[in-house]
């Protein structure tokens, strides 16, 4: 992790679309009177979705005003959680898991490929506006390590070649199927099932 600051260049203003505003009001209504601040994460998340995936300074003020929160309190939340991007990002945001299980299984190779192919540092956007990347801590899919997250989906069981293929596919405008890239189903054993091999009707007990 590194120091998280608001982007240098900021848009003039931010406003929720009418639909999102209505949604925001529903979120606020979930909390008791005077506790509107509880909705801050939901609103930041929705704001980020609306704003091409990043949280801008005017958005922080807009949400502060909506929730009756001092701006600094919204900024605290936005800078605390790494899931909020504080600067514009590429169309595809690649989050590379670097925590121990993934690292033991070769996340360094994956990172190398991403760095080489994208040619930009973490948090920066490629010239075509397609990609940006960052390192993250465990995303909870260690059993299929190493893995990366691209936008909302997990791509697992990677190595250098598979990562490269994945990025090429995205660059071509395709959306590869998420999940394991070796063809195994979810996180079943790599070498095929060793237990629960019978059919669904069988009564177990011995295996």
């Amino acid at each position, binding site marked *: *992790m*590194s*120091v*998280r600051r608001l982007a240098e260049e900021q848009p003039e203003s931010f406003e929720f679309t009418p639909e999102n505003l209505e949604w925001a009001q529903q979120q606020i209504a979930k909390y008791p009177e005077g506790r509107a601040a509880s909705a801050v994460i939901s609103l930041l998340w929705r704001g980020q979705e609306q704003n091409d995936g990043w949280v801008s*300074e005017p958005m922080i*003020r807009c949400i502060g*005003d909506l929730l009756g929160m*001092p*701006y*600094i*309190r919204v*900024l*605290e939340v936005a*800078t*605390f959680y790494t899931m909020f991007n504080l600067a514009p990002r590429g169309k595809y945001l690649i989050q590379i898991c670097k925590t121990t299980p993934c690292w033991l299984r070769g996340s360094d190779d994956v990172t190398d490929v991403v760095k080489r192919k994208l040619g930009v540092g973490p948090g920066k956007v490629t010239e075509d506006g397609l990609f940006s990347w960052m390192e993250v801590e465990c995303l909870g899919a260690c059993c299929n390590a190493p893995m990366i997250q691209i936008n909302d989906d997990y791509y697992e069981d990677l190595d250098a070649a598979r990562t490269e293929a994945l990025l090429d596919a995205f660059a071509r405008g395709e959306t590869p199927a998420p999940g394991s890239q070796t063809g195994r189903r979810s996180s079943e054993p790599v070498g095929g099932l060793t237990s629960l091999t019978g059919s669904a009707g069988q009564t177990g007990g011995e295996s």
Partner: protein
Amino acid sequence: MPKLTIDGTEVEVEPGASLLQACEAAGKEIPRFCYHERLSIAGNCRMCLIEVEGGPPKPVASCAMAAADDMVVHTDSPMVKKAREGVMEFLLANHPLDCPICDQGGECDLQDQAMAFGTDGSRFAENKRAVDDKNMGPLIKTEMTRCIHCTRCVRFTTEVAGIYDLGATGRGEDLEITTYLEKAVMSEMSGNVIDLCPVGALTSKPYAFTARPWELSKTETIDVMDAIGSSIRVDARGSEVMRILPRINDDVNEEWISDKTRFIWDGLRRQRLDTPYIREDGKLRKAGWGEALQRVAEKVKAAAPDRIAAVAGDLACAESMAALKDLWDALGSPHIDCRQDGAQLGGGERGDYLFTSTLSAIDTADALLLIGCNPRAEAAVFNARIVERSRLGGFAAASIGAPIDANFPCAQLGAGPATLRELIAGEHSFAKTLADAEQPMIIVGMGALARPDGAAVLSAAKQLAANVGATGVDVLHNAAARVGGLDLGLLPGEGGRDVAAIMQGAQAGEVDLVYLLGADEIDMNGLGDAFIVYQGSHGDAGAHRADVILPGAAYTEKNALWVNTEGRVQLGVRACFPPGEAREDWTILRALSDFVGHTLGYDDLSGLRARMIELAPHFTEIGTAGQAVAGAASEGAAMADTPFDLAIDDFYLTNPIARASAVMAECSALAQVAAQDKEATGTHG
């Protein structure tokens, strides 16, 4: 009441007390950084770890755990020692070793506790973290690499100062204390974070690199920037005041002071009157004391007693006012007044011009009505107390008068007397709030009293208090000298003129000489051709208009008494000597009395104090608030319909010392810009 054993001694503590408090009660010192008696508990520094038997097999943060019956606590076990050393090692891992160039050196909690509880080495071999410094305005200097993330500053600004500017962004090692977009902290109370910061991350900008704490002589005295009379400590080196810090006084200022109180000291060095002056051919020239006093005496003797007048200013000490009063009585002039702003107070019962229910009563009040009063500007420290009370909930506040920028929820009921009448008639919903409250408080400020119908307003407020069952009306003064002046009777005598009439008289040529005792707040152009004697410490409005200047001492340069708005007589102690030829104020009047042939009957301070006790017996009771009864509301005089004004429009520039201070000027300019921005955007920040 939980009973527990701490290091073998049994103690009993209040229910709800923390283990840390229990340890203190048992006489054990617990190191801490984030814990502070007057702030909420954060429990984030871990320095206060102790061992609780039978609890989890790890040290416990004593500040964040409640004491319970039968606990067995150790504060000096091997586990505790190891835990403290560990925490200290972590804290120092990223803390720079720049003590030699750090202003906190010598009074740094981290330094002291590292000495007492740390070890002599570190296993941390990596690079230390560095943090960008933040701009926090002209008062607070930042060195954020030194920050240990205790969040005391953040908690203070939100919980006490009532501003929401400071926060902690990021997390973990990258946590940073900052203001939103690095705006300057705009609060009258911001300087207190300097005292609260346990390390040298937040230090005083004006004081930066000027002194080390051990070189300073420390004098415990009181402040005169407002009528609260905060307890302060003045640190001086030689003849110069280097800084001003708060002292703990739960009845008055808890342990806070306002920025004006704290940073006024550069004003004590500028624009000083250090020698007598006489005006000759329209120009002031330096003069000796004998010459100057002779000149004044000639003019006094030449004028009929009915044609001389005296006005006492807002910072005057009780001693000088008593001497002035005696001198004027001896001369036979009834024209004397201590109310530069024309407040319609004094003369009647003492309780009619005091804050009778005492300042600390706000802690238990549940409804508050402000009439023509803006506590944030007039008594910033008291305002913080309202903020604290307000945060606890079950508290309703409202204001009548010009809209105020309150930093606690405060309903604006109306602009003036009309609203007050509605409340008295019970036609206003807030009247019910007051009536239903257990302990309603009605505070009347100078905005409502310093006007021709002030007495009627006070009477109306009393009526309201009686209607809603409040104990009385509390008068919030804003001049440190005022209550003392009223106590000593610096009011027009039989047929005497008040300030407005003195000015009229001077304009009309009916008053030949006006003696200004530190009075700078009146319109000097309104004094006609009268001969003006100015006695005071600073070359402000009065000195510019004066025909003779008699240089006096500022509040840090004399042993003197002031009476605060509660009627509390407080002792000011000299921290350093007045500059040059300047003298303690009462001695100037004593000397003048010789020259005019009416020698005052006291030769030393104790003689004068005895005389003051004759005039007002409560001057014996130093430190206690006035036990005074108020008169009943009077019928008759009607209130005008004009709305109540604000008594103070610039918090930072209310007196001659403040106007001489460059720091105050900068703060004032910044506050004006901020106010304009606020108006322009209409946003809160």
